[in-house]
């Protein structure tokens, strides 16, 4: 046999759910049958989910893509000369030239879908560990300064400046400090954390080691939701590889510094994405939200200073330490620096992950990248920022994705989830769901959240039934007000946003009932 041809078939959970496992097996079998040498690599996903399973063949002209491939296509693909990048109806050409990929700014997701996520050598060959190597030559102040100057803000929802958080933990005096990664990714419509756990887990590990060096922590935890069994397994395998490869342990990259890291599994509670609830959960308790202060950076996990960051925040750090603060800050707009991995989901033709500099609009995302709805019907709304995010009407689709611009229209960028709905959506039902979800997931500490959300469902039900519409609308707005102002955390404090946005932009959906008794 001649030199084996390298073929990539993703091991990402969505790609597998669309048949990638069967495709990989069919390629191996077909190659064997034809006595052709193939080196099969299981990469993460590029995030072009409408093309998954996306098979990539390495040729002299670069990586040539084919997709979406099903196992039944494989024999014909071989007939067409798959291994030489041959012509076929499923051939997409050079993967880097696919328009929806080429028009992205892939900083944090640069390697996702490109490398073998469990191969440290592949990681290094694509720029991995350079940021950490730099950090090892710097003092902790200098590392914190780079992160501060990059303008990086938390990607978990609250958009707090990461450098300031790290500075606080660095300044705290303690015998032990922790780095915690929030990979609970509870927001519906989001999968960026999952994709990195499955597609470039070493980037997270490297980011956490750098965070440890910056604040003086030697132990870290990654809290992964139980709904992500694939990510859990892949990340644990990556941890083992990072330990064996000397990235983790008592001599980080051969230096005298140590950092240990473990993964922990959540248990299906949305509130455990809230940082203090997550810390309670890591301590083995119910996920009850803590009062702040003290900040976790001062008194966090097991009472020790703790940096808790979203996964995307931490995974963005290695590239910043590699290329410098100015490089990262050079992307974006206003006070939103760098890039955001936007997750285009719901009723969308070309759904997936789009990493773009801040400032891109929903219109560009939904129309140019997404190609409109999957159903082919008109877009009626998009919920941005997860279950606590507002429903944005098309009239506001030109608003640039930027933390401040979204706050100005009573919206939230959050973790970057964009869920598209066509005109068959019933916005009163969506409002009802937001309240019901809040009731289901409330930790129970505050009355406005715990009781108010249940009342909210009842009031919306009365509105849907057409009973005393104006009175109930006033009651609902009042209730939302109480929740916004009287809740300890953003679950109760922001669940009203999807409700109010539905009410403000789609009042007709609350007035559908025949025989409305209080017009």
């Amino acid at each position: 046999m001649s030199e084996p041809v390298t073929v990539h078939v993703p091991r990402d959970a969505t790609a597998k759910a669309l048949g990638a496992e069967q495709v990989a097996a069919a390629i191996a079998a077909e190659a064997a049958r034809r006595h052709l040498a193939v080196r099969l690599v299981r990469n993460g996903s590029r995030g072009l989910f409408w093309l998954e399973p996306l098979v990539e063949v390495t040729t002299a002209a670069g990586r040539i893509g084919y997709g979406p491939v099903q196992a039944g296509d494989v024999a014909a693909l071989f007939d067409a000369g798959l291994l030489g990048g041959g012509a076929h109806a499923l051939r997409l050409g050079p993967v880097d030239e696919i328009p929806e990929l080429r028009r992205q700014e892939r900083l944090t997701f640069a390697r996702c879908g490109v490398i073998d996520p469990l191969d440290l050598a592949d990681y290094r060959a694509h720029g991995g560990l350079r940021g950490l190597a730099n950090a090892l030559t710097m003092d902790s102040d200098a590392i914190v300064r780079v992160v501060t100057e990059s303008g990086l803000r938390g990607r978990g929802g609250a958009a707090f400046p990461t450098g300031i958080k790290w500075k606080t933990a660095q300044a705290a005096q303690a015998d032990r400090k922790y780095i915690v990664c929030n990979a609970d990714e509870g927001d519906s419509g989001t999968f960026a954390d999952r994709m990195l756990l499955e597609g470039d887990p070493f980037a997270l590990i490297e980011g956490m080691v750098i965070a440890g060096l910056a604040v003086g922590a030697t132990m870290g935890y990654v809290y992964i939701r139980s709904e992500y069994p694939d990510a859990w397994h892949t990340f644990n395998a990556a941890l083992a590889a990072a330990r064996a490869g000397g990235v983790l342990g008592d001599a980080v990259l051969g230096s005298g510094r140590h950092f240990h890291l473990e993964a922990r599994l959540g248990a299906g509670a949305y509130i455990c994405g809230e940082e203090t609830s997550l810390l309670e959960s890591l301590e083995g308790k119910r996920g009850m939200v803590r009062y702040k202060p003290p900040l976790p950076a001062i008194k966090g996990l097991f009472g020790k200073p703790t940096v808790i960051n979203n996964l995307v925040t931490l995974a963005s750090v290695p590239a910043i330490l590699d290329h410098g603060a100015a490089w990262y800050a050079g992307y974006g707009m206003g006070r939103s620096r760098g890039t955001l991995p936007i997750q285009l989901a719901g009723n969308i033709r070309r759904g997936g992950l789009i990493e773009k500099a801040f400032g891109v609009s929903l219109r560009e995302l939904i129309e140019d990248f997404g190609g409109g709805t999957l159903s082919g019907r008109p877009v009626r709304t998009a919920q941005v920022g997860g279950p606590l995010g507002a429903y944005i009407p098309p009239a506001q689709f030109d608003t640039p994705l930027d933390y401040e611009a979204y706050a100005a229209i009573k919206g939230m960028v959050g973790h970057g989830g964009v869920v598209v709905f066509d005109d068959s959506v019933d916005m009163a039902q969506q409002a009802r769901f937001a309240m019901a979800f809040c009731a289901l997931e409330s930790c129970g500490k505050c009355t406005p959240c715990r009781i108010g959300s249940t009342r909210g469902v009842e009031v919306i039900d009365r509105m849907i039934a057409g009973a005393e519409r104006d009175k109930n609308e006033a009651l609902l707005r009042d209730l939302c007000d109480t929740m916004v102002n009287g809740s300890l955390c953003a679950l109760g404090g922001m669940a009203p946003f999807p409700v109010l946005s539905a009410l403000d932009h789609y009042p007709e959906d609350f007035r559908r009932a025949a025989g409305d008794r209080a017009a």
Partner: protein
Amino acid sequence: MMESRARSATPPGGIAPALPPAQIATVHEVIARLQEQPGALLPILHGVQDALGHIPDGAVGPIAHALNLTRAEVHGVLTFYHWFRREKPGRHVLHLCRAEACQAVGATALEQHAQRTLGTDFHGTSVDGAITLEPAYCLGNCACGPSLLLDGELHARVTPQRFDALIAAARKA
């Protein structure tokens, strides 16, 4: 539409049924393996559920004892988290996504189809003992919904027809 956190219960401090010896041995093995780590309770609860399919009431006492907690504390944690199950599940566990991105592509209709064809509400098991139906609020497959996990394996773009085929295959397995 959605149920509250607490499910049926032996009250904390109440008399829990004794576990069969094999289950006792499993519970003790899980405890011994995991109890030394900080914040060991969730890992232990996961360990027991992975091994037994659920966390029987009789496991609460030994776990509490090993971690120096009260049974009420362990019970409180166990019932706080939606993932943990106190009743024995069917032969297969199905988590059906009910969240917004899946709603946008027909999850609500799929949910009704699932409940009707399996003859059970969420948290229940089909009469033949084959499938336990659990709700999930996002499985991270939001660009290709409706989504479900069947015994931990993700399935995408699940139409009612695909659902029926998956269930039929699981029933045969």
